[in-house]
């Protein structure tokens, strides 16, 4: 064997574990999911192993279901609303904590708490807080005279999605804050000094120094935030179960509904594929923008 061939072999040998891992844990399930969406894959399949191919029947059935359209729109609203809220508040907090002040460390760690609470537990507590009848939030708004009639946070089809978004924002703030805060620490302070000498005001400093320097971190935060938000299931299930009247159904609750309630795994796989497609689009956009920045 020539030296060159050997070194090439060695290269592949080093790559092999990663390839095997990716193929086993990403490639196989992904392809399987696509295949499954063309099969009549039901509870019986688990026992008999038979899943006849049915062409596009699952896809047609899912897209003809009005709830699917509703769920797709809700997923967009939920994701955009959550991201805007999480990112906006997270950025403001990160900027705030950048100025060191007494107790800022303590406060910063306290703000991480929502991240540490198990999602289902947080959801259960929020359901109690938002209850229209005896919920703490309505009681508080009543006592302070802000409202005269209880707000049906989770029990009105018009309001429920907003409430679910608000809860998800609360959950997502710590993540956004921590990553953005880390990004802010990386910006060299001499840039700010130079800006100060040039007489840049606060807004100008933010726009010309902080934001451009933070851009790569922002892209990562938004991409990870998107992927984490678009597939949120537990919060919605615990808060509303997709109700009232399907007003908080999302694509992920549809996957759950089709696969694990109706035991129609073929249709569940269709919705799952749509979700994966959406994630893929965003991942590609991210990679492209990143490549531009590097070159």
């Amino acid at each position, binding site marked *: 064997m020539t030296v060159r061939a050997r070194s090439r072999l060695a290269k592949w040998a080093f790559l092999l574990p990663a390839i095997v891992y990716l193929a086993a844990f990403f490639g196989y399930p992904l392809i399987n999911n696509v295949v499954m969406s063309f099969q009549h894959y039901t509870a*019986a399949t688990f026992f008999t*192993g038979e899943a006849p191919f049915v062409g596009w029947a699952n896809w047609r059935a899912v897209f003809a279901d009005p709830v699917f359209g509703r769920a797709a729109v809700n997923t967009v609203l939920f994701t955009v609303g959550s991201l805007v809220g999480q990112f906006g508040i997270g950025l403001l907090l990160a900027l705030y904590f950048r100025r060191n002040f007494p107790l800022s460390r303590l406060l910063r760690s306290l703000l991480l708490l929502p991240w540490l609470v198990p999602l289902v537990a947080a959801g259960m507590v929020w359901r109690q807080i938002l209850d229209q009848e005896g919920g703490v939030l309505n009681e508080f708004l009543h006592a302070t005279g802000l409202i005269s009639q209880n707000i049906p946070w989770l029990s009105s089809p018009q309001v429920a999605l907003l409430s679910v978004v608000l809860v998800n924002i609360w959950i997502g703030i710590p993540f956004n804050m921590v990553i953005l805060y880390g990004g802010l620490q990386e910006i060299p302070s001499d840039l700010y000094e130079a800006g100060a000498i040039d007489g840049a005001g606060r807004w100008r400093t933010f726009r010309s120094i902080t934001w451009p320097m933070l851009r790569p971190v922002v892209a990562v935060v938004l991409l990870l935030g998107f992927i984490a938000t678009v597939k949120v299931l537990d919060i919605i299930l615990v808060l509303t*179960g*997709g109700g009232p009247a399907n007003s908080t159904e999302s694509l992920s609750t549809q996957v759950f509904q089709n696969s694990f309630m109706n035991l129609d795994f073929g249709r569940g796989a269709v919705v799952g594929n749509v979700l994966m497609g959406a994630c893929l689009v965003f991942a590609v956009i991210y990679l492209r923008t990143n490549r531009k920045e590097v070159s």
Partner: protein
Amino acid sequence: MIPQARIRRRTWLAASLCGLLASGCAAAPDPTELTFMDYHGDEPMRSAMTAQLDDCGDQIGMKVRHYSVSGDQLVPKALRMASSRSMPDVLMLDNPDLPQFADTQALRSLNDLGISAEGIAPNIAATGRYRGELYGIAPTVNTLALYYNRDILDQAGVRPPKTWDELRAAARELTTAQHRGIGFSAYASFEGAYQFLAFLWPNGGDERELDSPQAIGALQLWTDLVRSGSAPQAVMNWEQGDVKNQFTAGRLAMMVNGSWQAAEVRETPGLNWGVVPIPVPRPGAPPATALGGEVMTIPKSEPWRERKAAELARCMNTKKAQIAVAHAANRVPSRPDAAAELRPEVPDLRVFYDTAPAARSRTERIGTGWPDIARALWTAIQSAISGNATPEEALERAQQHVDSGS
């Protein structure tokens, strides 16, 4: 000569391979032990079942391992086990899940194993049948009734309602700043649909025809109760456990709930309560609620294990075993003779015993269609009681949904 390190590496590899093989062997069932899987992780049912299973294990000369998973995990877990042929010897399913599971052909017909539904109330035996074949057997069941807060009703001079008209009037009168007249579960889950059947059926409605005038009438009642404020709009977000919490906290004068909630209602200090059958549309109309509870099924395995599992199921289904579990867990035995024997000992649950013979299986008519129909139903309920649609529009849409789905 082989370097020392390489030998060690080989030993490791061999050891881990052995480990893998050994764990494969360990998965083979223990010939002295039967496994029993259910979702009874909560007290008092968990202890009641474990005690009775131990007792029956002694009688049939096998150890019985009882393990519980959470309610929403039971079916997915059992399916995974089915695909790897490692099902428990006895699987206890929520009764509406039985048709879908029997449809997989993973279950043994109980008649083949010498278990019959003899001695069990016929309406209860129906919860274990699929396409005429007996796949499951329910030792105990539960039903729904109307709990009421005696103090609140006495104070207002209201008697527990018997008909829908009386229910409307009572709920209105019992609604004050401190409490609402009535609560029920209209949550987006099987629980919401389950509770609604107790109003749909007595009105002559049929789950196969959701847009019938009878169904619309039943939904109109729920809608009126909520829209008038006699029941809170929050019922859309209450599971049955939440309804019970509101009731024990004194925020509801009446509630629709099951016998299994009696344990906590009893333990609430200072709560003076009673139970009556769910009010019916017209005087004298028979109450009909949906039968709740679980059925024991026997997944296919080796013949001798199936026979042993059948012995265990038979033992769990004797009069004595039924009474032990039903008494401890506030349920109704499925054998009329067992129920008759236990009834005098549970005065506060008598209503459940008296209405159980009129209760019905959710899947008797629609088989595997229940998940679709239930979903259409709870969506319609929520649309109507939130005021987004009239009961008529909501139920027409529900029926269209069911028709197009299959």
